[in-house]
């Protein structure tokens, strides 16, 4: 377990800030009572909890600016929060800090079908954007599995992906412009309605910055024409390695599938029981490969993928014969996390990305580590882009199991770094993986991150203690193996 992050604030400062906040928002929008703060004590990473000093439910831009100014003046940390669906503790409150909820910013301000853009407030849910764009034959491409609940502000903070990002990109590829409030209350527009802007690409820095550089007030997003049709092939393999090689073979054939996902046997077993997607439960792994586009294009690509998959040793192939069947095949994949949640009291979701050629080695090591730690693990894999989600199952009520689970998880992340990958592909570092940052980055690189943050937030008040560890933090973290951060 990590230590909770807490700021040292004296009583006088606390009282002064609270009375200022009370002057900014109506009483109902300022939560300070324990029972009101409780729902905000964690995000989707429920293993870490911290009650904040206060939660402010801002309703407009002027309130956000006033809250930030007040906190800045008093030196009190601020954690911005959307729907709280994040999986790495990016929205876990800071003790004695303020949680700034953007939940009331839920308006879609404009859909421009000719320009193919949507201008939305940060609290708008991901899927609501695609729903609003649908009448124009457009949609917002990034589709994280939490898309029915997660908000665009959170997607920007985490640079969220989804199952279609190999072809359509991540959040960073689909945002044109952000209106952002800095900690001192200054407002800055980053990016533009054009395809680029003068100066540095600040948009690239802001997206995925885990709420540590600014608070998103408004986002202009790129909309994509909805493909006419989509079809998916489900391939069964009697060997996980064969399935991994089949992915490489598809790419080598010059095909970029719209989606390319793999699940191992423990994952399909959990899922099938839950959603009855028709998965082959005797297979060691199944692969879902989707094609989208014009009917001719899809027919051509599906035929090509089937040929490749057969040659790669798939023992069974099923092509979706209707939209309903396609959605059924995907329903299993999209429900993988909750499905695993049903068969275990608790689970930890890892998020490393690896060069795909090391898949066999990594999966073998994960199985060995599972034995070593005495815990079960199901693997769900964004195979096209190498992003692996091992789901470590445990029971927090059994003494010692949570420590074993986090230990197991840490080893998987370090393994990802060892093979040339990264500790997080799309869920963010947050509070969960902050220690493993010491493995992936050197002291100098971490210093560069801190210096970059200081250009936006010199006093370090936005979401402190997350994402980028201090050198001291790293020297306290006993490194396992010969990590490059050993210089700290």
């Amino acid at each position, binding site marked *: 377990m990590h230590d909770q992050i807490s700021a040292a604030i004296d009583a006088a400062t606390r009282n002064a800030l609270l009375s200022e906040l009370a002057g900014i928002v109506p009483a109902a929008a300022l939560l300070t009572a324990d029972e009101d703060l409780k729902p905000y004590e964690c995000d989707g990473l429920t293993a870490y909890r911290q009650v904040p000093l206060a939660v402010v439910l801002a309703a407009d831009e002027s309130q956000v600016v006033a809250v930030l100014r007040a906190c800045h003046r008093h030196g009190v940390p601020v954690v911005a929060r959307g729907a709280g669906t994040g999986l790495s503790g990016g929205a876990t409150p800071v003790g004695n800090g303020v949680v700034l909820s953007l939940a009331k910013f839920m308006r879609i301000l404009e859909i421009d079908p*000719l*320009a*193919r853009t949507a201008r939305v407030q940060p609290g708008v849910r991901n899927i609501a954007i695609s729903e609003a764009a649908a009448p124009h034959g457009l949609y917002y491409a990034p589709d994280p599995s939490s898309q029915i609940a997660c908000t665009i502000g959170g997607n920007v903070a985490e*640079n969220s992906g989804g199952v279609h*990002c190999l072809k359509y*990109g*991540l959040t960073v*590829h689909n945002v044109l412009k952000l209106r952002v409030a800095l900690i001192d209350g200054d*407002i*800055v527009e980053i990016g*533009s*309605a*054009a*395809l*680029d*802007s*003068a*100066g*540095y*690409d*600040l948009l*690239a*820095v802001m*997206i*995925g910055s885990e709420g540590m550089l600014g608070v998103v007030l408004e986002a202009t997003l790129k909309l994509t*024409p909805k493909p006419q049709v989509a079809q998916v092939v489900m391939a069964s393999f009697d060997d996980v390695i064969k399935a991994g090689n089949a992915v490489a073979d598809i*790419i080598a054939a010059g095909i*970029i599938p719209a989606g390319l996902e793999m699940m191992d046997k423990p994952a399909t077993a959990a899922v099938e029981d839950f959603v009855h997607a028709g998965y082959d439960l005797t297979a060691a792994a199944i692969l879902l490969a989707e094609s989208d*586009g*014009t009917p*001719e*294009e899809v*027919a*051509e690509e599906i035929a090509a993928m089937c040929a490749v998959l057969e040659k790669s040793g798939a023992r069974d192939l099923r092509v979706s014969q209707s939209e309903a069947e396609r959605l059924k095949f995907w329903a299993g994949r999209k429900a993988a996390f909750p499905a695993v949640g049903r068969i275990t009291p608790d689970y930890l979701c890892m998020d490393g*990305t*690896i*060069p*795909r*050629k090391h898949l066999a080695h990594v999966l073998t090591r994960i199985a060995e580590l599972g034995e070593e730690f005495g815990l079960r693990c199901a693997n769900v894999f*964004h195979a096209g882009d*190498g*992003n692996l989600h091992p789901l470590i199952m445990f029971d927090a009520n059994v003494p010692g199991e949570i420590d074993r689970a986090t230990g197991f998880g840490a080893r998987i992340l370090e393994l990802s770094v060892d093979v*040339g990958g*990264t*500790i*997080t*592909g799309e*869920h*963010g*570092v947050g509070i969960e993986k902050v220690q493993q*940052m010491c493995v*992936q*980055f050197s002291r100098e*690189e971490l210093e560069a991150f801190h*210096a*970059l*943050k200081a*250009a936006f937030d010199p006093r370090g008040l936005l979401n402190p203690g997350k*994402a*980028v560890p201090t050198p001291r933090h790293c020297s306290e973290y006993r490194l396992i193996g010969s990590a490059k951060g050993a210089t700290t």
Partner: protein
Amino acid sequence: MSDLTEQFADRIRAASGPLCIRGSGSKDFYGNAPRGEVLEAGGHRGIVGYEPTELVITARCGTPLAEIKSALAERRQMLAFEPPSFGDAATIGGVVAAGLSGPRRATAGSVRDFVLGVKLLDGEGRLLTFGGQVMKNVAGYDVSRLIAGSLGTLGLISEVSIKVLPLPMAEATLRFELPQDKALDLMNRWAGQPLPVSATCWADDSLTLRLSGAGTAVESASSALGGERVADAAAAHFWTSLREQRHAFFAADGDAAALWRLSVPSIAGALDLPGATLVEWGGAQRWIRGGSSDAPRAAALRVGGHATLFRGGDKSAGVFQPLDPVTQRIHRDLKRSFDPRGILNAGRMYPDL
């Protein structure tokens, strides 16, 4: 090829004044005039890793763009942002530092969209690694994409990893005789439909459009859109000449005359500016030739875009659109954080960076 990173680092550490990082010099014309002692980066070259099935190529900064393109072509892959070279010797480091993308940009994405990782020597000569060779990576701030287009002002790109894509199975180029406003409207409408458009160009009352993708998709879009089909060899020549600015539009006045690049929302109507216009990127990039005033800057700003004095003209007022005060402050602080002594490509982008 020898690894010159340590040599570069020594040179940066020892520098007492501005250093001008230079690959082949093919883009010396771009940005504010280079100044300081030249640090030749072109000798640090070679493809370090290329994994076609992982869609990633990693190369040292001095690797010629041409070498990378031919290595990719052998495996039927490409740099999807279709970078211009502006000279046979252009290096990949220069491509990333300049951040310029070609005809495919509006649909495929820009340089920064494809940068996955960099090894960077900062202004103190420290070698820092950001990002990596994988497609999805959110550990730490996305510094590698920030470096794309930063004109060497934040560090010397020693090595870069770039996402690559398969070459399209088929391509077709169509031509339509149309006035500018009609062409702008059509480009925007087509972009809203699921058509495999990969590039557009309007000049001299003629709209040229390229389709790329699966053979069947290209053929069906081609017959649905109509227009005159341009022969393959002529089409390839056209898109290359456009990318390299050897198209007649660019050649007309010579290198000394002002060439403005306007980056604007694609739906902005025809801009009322003196001088000839060439439109690319579905309407989002407009080239304006001639004229000595800074009217293009005001015109771009009016529609929510920005203008760059791309070539020639009078650079004394600066090449890039001025920044608002808050953005300017962030730029200065970022520059200071990577290059505290302010020696790397000083002034190339803005006078105070």
